[in-house]
């Protein structure tokens, strides 16, 4: 297995509290990563320096969202999305809901 290579790394600041980090890795195509892509989209509380929302696709879960960070890292909700782009759309929607509160 070759090492994961970062192919996208973007950061975005949303005043006054949040920041977004989008990271996408190219990995070997496999049963675990059929698209050959590992994605990690995270919304960070920049004041308390804690993650608030995390969408990723590490095995064995496929695309899922951690909605109860940082209190409970083990609570995951499966995302019914086909690929990393749909996952990004869902992450954007959830982030917006949190950021506009």
């Amino acid at each position: 297995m070759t090492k994961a290579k970062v192919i996208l790394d973007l950061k975005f600041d949303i005043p006054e509290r949040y920041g977004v980090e989008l990271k996408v890795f190219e990995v070997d195509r496999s049963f675990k990563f059929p698209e050959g892509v590992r994605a990690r989209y995270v919304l960070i509380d920049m004041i308390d320096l804690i993650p608030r929302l995390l969408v990723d696709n590490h095995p064995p879960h496929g695309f899922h969202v951690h909605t109860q960070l940082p209190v409970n890292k083990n609570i995951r909700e499966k995302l019914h999305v086909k690929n990393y782009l749909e996952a990004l759309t869902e992450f954007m929607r959830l982030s917006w809901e949190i950021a506009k509160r």
Partner: protein
Amino acid sequence: MKIKPIRIVFESFDDFFARARRQIQEAVETRKRFIQPKDLRVWSSVEGYQQFMNDQKYSILAVIYKYQPKSVYQLAKILNRAQQNVARDCDLLAGRRFIKFVSSKKGRKNKAPRLSFDYNAVEVHLPSVTYKIEFEKVS
């Protein structure tokens, strides 16, 4: 002296995600890499940035650049401000990746505030105008 700024640009929430979407697709399809440069900060609103980055925070950056204080305590002394308030501002600046804390290898366990990379100005790209705030160097 060569000016090495940290650049602040603005993009709406929707525009950022539209760009991210395009770039992710292109990165996966063509293997082209999209890595945000370390000197670039993308903010979603001008008002938000201006509220965040007040004169006191610019002063903190300038003093860190000029005096390289060994601790937040020393930084607060130079600024003549309460340490608690300076510490809070430093935490906010660190969260936004303007500064970082560096642990010293020996001596006390102070964390020295340092600029997140070697920059000496903040260049703010507003939609209609760009302005630059340069830090003074010790002569």
